[in-house]
């Protein structure tokens, strides 16, 4: 018996429909059908990365690599500026006759700051693009949805999609041959 999230909004507005499948293959066929029907506000939920699902859903490549690149570049510049400002500008001091500022001696720190800034951009960028953390979501109040992190593969279509129609959308999902189509409210 699992713990159920308290759902104070039960009986609220319709969020959308949810249907689940046993296997990856059924999900992929279903995703292509929903994609080809022209829906935009819909999603699939899988316990792991399903390769080929991006194409079956028509997901466009993410801009995350550009964000990470900019993060890395910022790191390089900050690392170099920090070393130049502290050791060559604000308080220049001579050690063992080494140059006050020279790239070879300053590369290791600049390299580390590049990696640090890029890695933080990767995590923060990923979460921001996914709009996480989002601790409340109507889907979490559905009991079947808990299986999406275990071994079930699901498709959800949101009610706000312009093509959404209570009976037509239900028929489309029922025809895919998954579980019973559930209404998600909240």
């Amino acid at each position, binding site marked *: 018996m*699992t*713990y159920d999230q308290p759902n104070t909004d039960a009986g609220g507005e319709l969020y959308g429909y949810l249907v689940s499948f046993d*296997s*990856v*293959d059924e999900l*992929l*066929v279903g995703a*292509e059908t929903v994609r080809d029907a022209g829906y935009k506000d819909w*999603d*699939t*939920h*899988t*316990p*792991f*990365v*399903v*390769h*080929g*699902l*991006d*194409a*079956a*859903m028509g*997901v466009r490549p*993410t801009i*995350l690599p550009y964000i990470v690149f900019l993060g890395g570049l910022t790191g390089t510049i900050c690392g170099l500026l*920090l070393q130049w400002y*502290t*050791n060559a500008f604000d*308080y220049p*001091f001579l*050690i063992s006759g080494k140059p006050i500022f020279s790239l070879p*001696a*300053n590369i*290791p*720190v600049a*390299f*580390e700051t590049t*990696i*640090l800034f*890029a*890695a*933080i951009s*990767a*995590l923060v960028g*990923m*979460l921001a693009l*996914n709009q*996480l*953390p989002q*601790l*409340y979501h109507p*889907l*979490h109040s559905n009991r079947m949805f*808990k*299986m*999406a*992190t*275990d*071994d079930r593969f699901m498709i959800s279509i949101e009610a706000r999609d312009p093509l959404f129609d209570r009976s037509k959308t239900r028929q489309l999902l029922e025809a895919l041959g998954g579980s019973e189509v559930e209404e998600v409210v909240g």
Partner: protein
Amino acid sequence: MSTSTVDTRVMLDNTTDDPTRRAPLVLNHNDFGFITDTVCGVVERKTPRAWYIAFAISLSLTGVLAVMVAYLVGVGIGVWGLQVPVAWGWAIVNFVFWVGIGHAGTLISAILFLLRQKWRTSINRFAEGMTIFAVACAGIFPGIHVGRIWVAYWLAPIPNQMQMWPNFRSPLLWDVFAVGTYATVSLLFWYMGMIPDLATLRDRATTKPRWLAYGLLSMGWRSSNRHWHRFEMAYLLLAALATPLVLSVHSVVSFDFAVSIIPGWHTTIFPPYFVAGAIFSGFAMVVTLVIPTRHFFHLEEIITLRHLENMSKIMLATGMMVGLAYSTEFFMAWYSGNHYEAFTFMNRAFGPYAWAYWIMVTCNVVVPQIFWFKKMRTNLVVMWIASILINVGMWFERFVIVVSSLSRDFLPTSWGYYRPSIVDILTFVGSFGLFFTLFLLFVRFLPIIGMAEVKGVMPAALHGEPGHGDYHGDITERSALRGGDR
């Protein structure tokens, strides 16, 4: 559901190589629910009594560490066995030892990911966790060895009362940045990979505190494919960033030595030699921890014999690299014609610290040779004992480098013989307490195997390939474009 690549008979030995089929990575099962139940079961079952006993011992040792550090801070650095000429004793030996152990996690999660070594999925979470705990132990030693630890913030470029900045032309400062970055990036990588698995624990939670705790940690993850898409890209990018990072960290650690002029330290072989040694010791520590854990929590079907055999092969390969480095050092000491260098190496092998040198050679070069034999690579007792011997050897490697070089440098009048004090020894023992305390908490409360990743390499997750299910849509072409990531 196709099960063509899995033998349906109950089996636990998957080390046979048959080129016509892929060796299964999960044995006897091809359903995702099995992975969820097994891995979550470790966290959800009642805490075993053995865990409490182990935790009590580890926590007491952590207490010993705390007392030793407090004593050091209160009385001063003289409580250690340090004396000129050996001013870098066990503190630096322990630091390099722990940082080295902390290299296997990122190697498994980043480098093996980029090389598409799918067997990594069963052990990467485990190794990443171990990395973070080892780096935490490592971080203590340089922090406390500065003596006046209340001014340790001088290491960071923070404005201070002297109105001076740290010297960025010193490898010791590079080290601060390298280890600091490594600790941060390892933590990010570990946490990010765990988000989907924390969501699984949230969805299986039976009590409100569990649901709240795992719910907050998993950030409301709802396994959406639009999220997975960015998640996977972030994972790939982090792996690509962590790979040069892991190679840089121990290189920078080796610069602490190589940039000085002490004979035995001042060599260009140090960066690759240190990195190979770090991976060697890191894998040994993973084996030391994984063999009892998999036995105790019955994970034999997920962390299979083949995984352990692969790790033995890596230990053999890196052990040989370390052996090559030892002989290259000796060759260069002779070939360079430098008398000080030649003396240092003769002194290492036949001087007052010869005992330490030969322990190192025996444990690091001779012991791994048993892994040439498959019987040894698949014998858990042999593997476990060898992994402990390797870590003993790797600790002695750092001891030999630090102490033997310093104790006899250019001037015979300043030679000395270093002995650790009881405080040195107890501090080191205490650091193991901290390591195991963190490790036991991890095993008890977090998913120790990356469930989402293991599920992704199971045969049932494959599709769009002849013989795998009935879907032959437009993904086949796309996966061919991506280099066939089956």
